[in-house]
């Protein structure tokens, strides 16, 4: 056991120490501490949007960097994601009430034949944290699922994830079908997953390949802005 006086009392920390402490707690996957931290900041009058971006999203960004650099591996990322989810579940209803910015709507799913969903879930979470509305289709999606959801949801962005060399070519099937139906240019298409790369993204006709969730958020913002600037 840690000594008694090493235990931190979160509510006694000033904001400028509490927020970095929450980054640490997120890094360590401590869901209860994150819940507590979020509640303290709310009591102190922080807006839900500020808590989300400054405490949670920023914390996950650090987790993302250390995953990329091989310092953290899959279980740590999952635990951190769970902690973030705990914080988000408090903030989500409040964000809607307080009218936080809505940047666009994304339909996302892992492609047919592929069961890997950790990366996709992380992207969804970070995109949601940044102010995008997310429609998550889960795993193993045939082209019909994507098309149906894009239309039903009047989405702006399609996100596809694949972790297997055998399933990544299916992204091209989806994009080609969209071209055939004449709807390709109605959407921004973003793709990702560890075995993909920039060249592959270009070859299949996606608008962007993103190597991680942080890049995905920035890319989505850029592409949305570019889209709005286009003449109608």
């Amino acid at each position, binding site marked *: 056991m840690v000594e008694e006086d090493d235990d931190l009392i979160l509510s006694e920390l000033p904001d400028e120490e509490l927020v970095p402490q929450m980054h640490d707690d997120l890094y360590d996957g401590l869901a209860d501490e994150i819940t507590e931290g979020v509640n303290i900041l709310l009591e102190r009058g922080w807006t839900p949007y500020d808590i989300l971006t400054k405490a949670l999203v920023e914390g996950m960004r650090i987790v993302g960097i250390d995953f990329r650099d091989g310092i953290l591996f899959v279980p740590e990322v999952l635990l951190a994601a769970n902690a973030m989810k705990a914080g988000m579940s408090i903030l989500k209803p409040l964000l809607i009430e307080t009218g936080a910015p809505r940047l666009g709507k994304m339909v996302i799913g892992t492609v047919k034949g592929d*069961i890997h*969903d950790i990366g996709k879930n992380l992207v969804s979470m970070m995109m949601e944290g940044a102010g995008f509305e997310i429609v998550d289709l889960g795993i193993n999606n045939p082209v019909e699922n994507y098309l149906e959801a894009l239309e039903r949801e009047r989405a702006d962005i399609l996100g596809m994830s694949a972790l297997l060399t055998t399933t990544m070519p299916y992204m091209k099937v989806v994009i080609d079908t969209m071209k055939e139906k004449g709807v390709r240019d109605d959407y921004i298409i973003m793709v990702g997953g560890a075995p993909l790369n920039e060249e592959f993204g270009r070859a299949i006709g996606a608008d962007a390949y993103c190597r991680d969730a942080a890049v995905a958020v920035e890319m989505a913002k850029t592409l949305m802005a570019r889209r709005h600037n286009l003449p109608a």
Partner: protein
Amino acid sequence: MLALNDHGMVDAGLSAPQALAGVFPGRVLVIACGALAREILALRKLNRWDHLELTCLPAKLHLHPELIPDAVARAIEDARPHYDRIFVAYADCGTGGLLAARCRELGVEMVAGPHCYSFFDGNAAFAARADAEMRAFFLTDFLVRQFDAFVWKPMGLDRHPELREMLFGHYERLIYLAQAQDARLDTEAARCARRLGLAYERRTTGYGDLATALATLSPEAVA
């Protein structure tokens, strides 16, 4: 004959001890993933492929496939002066085609297919079953032996059993693709399935396309 311990194959790999000492005319070096060491040595013995020399990279590279192409290329460069022919016993292994591109550049052949589950089963058969077996998690002889080191611990299930649902929640069964006939491995694989909460199936594959690929390296096979 080389002494082999599977556990060493996870982290450390294996080097052909003579590799750097001289030049070996007519000899073929197989640069393999540690997860295939025992199987390649078994095939070598069975078929009397005495011309084959084996060197292995740590199987753990599979958890970081982006490191595989450079690691294999380095092993090729190191061995090249000493061997007439080099063969890479890796499949794509999640490198998104980069390992194949690298081997092509270096003029070295490799095993066809996406990963070892596929080439043990036979690439064509595995692909044909892909839809039906989409919710199956596969183990090979190596993975049954190294289940804790390769699956249970790296996925954090030893420390955080609650992650089981996030990791394996979409899976229905575990299929043990058996290379050798070994009742103990069968029992152990069934235990792995129980630990993951999955139904258990066993399929004898033998060495599949790995055997076919290595057979092309024997002197008689040279066209």
